[in-house]
């Protein structure tokens, strides 16, 4: 899951639109500058052109350099590419079918399905609306609580997400191969709840874990003052995988490697 603050994520989403508005404003700006000082307008154009070219060159060189020097950079690029690709190639037919079924007859399961599909498409507001409607009709479905938690988690709504994951876990212990328990542990960690360590340990014992759960466990151990345990968890996370990791898990492995490398063995 992403650790990017929701405000930054919202700003990044609006960036393309802002660029279009900026481009639209540019001729007007030049015209206004030209009215008072024609030389300054020409200089502004020439300087902007030069800056854009040099900026492009620096950005390319900088990206290559960062990829070479900072290990999470390639993992971050892979994860960003993976997420973009998923967004672009997600089949929209199931959502259209689910929406048309919902128009015929609204039920908790149909609202939950629409909510799940909207979450996958990145429409958090729409997903939240349908998941709330679903829970209004039937509060005893673990997967709906789990989906609700997954919508709230990237928005850093830790308290509500923790409740959702807790309900999912209570209704169906080990739900989604322990994913609800793992996220519950992370939410507790973010809320400063001392129960986080126990939850994450329980997850580790029952379901094993990958780089993500190890990194989160390391965070919890560090907060509890167990530095050696945290280093061991990070080592587990950074260990070479037997199978190719997903882009998300690979990102956490990269983080673990950097944290071990950057502080000479201590996170």
């Amino acid at each position: 899951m992403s650790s990017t603050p929701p405000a930054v994520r919202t700003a990044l989403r609006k960036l393309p639109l802002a660029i279009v508005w900026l481009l639209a404003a540019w001729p007007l700006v030049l015209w206004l500058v030209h009215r008072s000082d024609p030389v300054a307008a020409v200089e502004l154009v020439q300087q902007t052109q030069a800056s854009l070219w040099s900026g492009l060159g620096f950005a390319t060189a900088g990206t290559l350099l960062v990829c070479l020097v900072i290990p999470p950079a390639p993992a971050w690029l892979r994860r960003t590419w993976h997420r973009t690709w998923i967004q672009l190639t997600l089949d929209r037919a199931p959502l259209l079918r689910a929406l048309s079924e919902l128009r015929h007859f609204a039920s908790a399961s149909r609202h939950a399905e629409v909510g799940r599909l909207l979450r996958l498409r990145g429409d958090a507001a729409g997903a939240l609306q349908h998941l709330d409607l679903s829970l209004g009709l039937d509060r005893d479905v673990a997967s709906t609580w789990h989906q609700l938690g997954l919508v709230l988690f990237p928005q850093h709504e830790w308290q509500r997400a923790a409740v959702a994951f807790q309900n999912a876990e209570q209704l169906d212990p080990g739900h989604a191969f322990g994913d609800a328990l793992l996220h519950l542990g992370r939410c507790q960690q973010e809320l400063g709840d001392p129960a986080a360590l126990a939850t994450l340990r329980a997850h580790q014992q029952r379901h094993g874990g990958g780089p993500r759960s190890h990194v989160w466990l390391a965070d919890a151990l560090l907060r509890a003052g167990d530095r050696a345990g945290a280093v061991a968890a990070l080592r587990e996370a950074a260990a070479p995988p037997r199978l190719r990791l997903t882009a998300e898990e690979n990102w956490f492995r990269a983080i673990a490697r950097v944290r071990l490398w950057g502080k000479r063995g201590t996170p």
Partner: protein
Amino acid sequence: MKDLLQQADEIPVTLLVALAWATLAVLTKPFGPAEEFGQHLQQFGWLTPGLCADGEPWRLLGYAFLHGGVVHLLLNMSALFTFAPALEKSLGSVRFALLYLVTAVTGGLACCLVDQPGQPVVGGSGALFGMMGAVIAMNMRSGRHVFAFLDFEGPRRLLGWIVVQIALGFFLPMISNAGHIGGLLGGIVLTFLWLRPGDATPALRQWRWATTALAASLLFWSLQPVTRWDAIGRELQGTGDRQRAELLLQAYQRATGRSLTAPDDEPATPRPR
């Protein structure tokens, strides 16, 4: 031909466009002396960024109905009858006419943005690329996901054809690639954002406002390219204010990289580049 005439009531705009192309091709006398042909093209509306900025914005549309010879006309005519009938039936005649006009203008705006002030452009290929962009956009919109259309041979071939045409445009000096790319982007954006069924979502509305503002801004730039050397020169010739003339002269020198000397008592007259 017989088929086309039989479906005349279904594709009136396509036939009107073809008729306009053919009529103007006859009026511009392409078989006459080259100089005379050029004069006719200029008279009937070829587009140069300089003329457009000089108070003739109608050229942004007029150039899309003219052709630089019989071969040019026949090539574009064959492309028109390949893409336009199906597209017009799919979109409807009014929307198709809007697509043709808007993409012709976006192609012209791209020429004004990129080309040299005196470089003339004629041809309906900007609008034809707009039609191809519309086909791609419709495929992208209606598939299971944005790239699902690549599973089908027809759209894949069309995309390949567009790529080849644009790549050729970079190497062949007689092709206005700016017009092609401008028309293509105009067609994609117009079809994606405007020519679609259903109510507009807030995000769609935001994009519609932004792209409309961008198009209006490009139109403003093509009419008032204040930092381009030809526009500065024109203003320099027209200004009576000595202080302003000094500034414009400096700006002109900055824009062209040439040094000019102004006579003491009158504003400098720039030479063409």
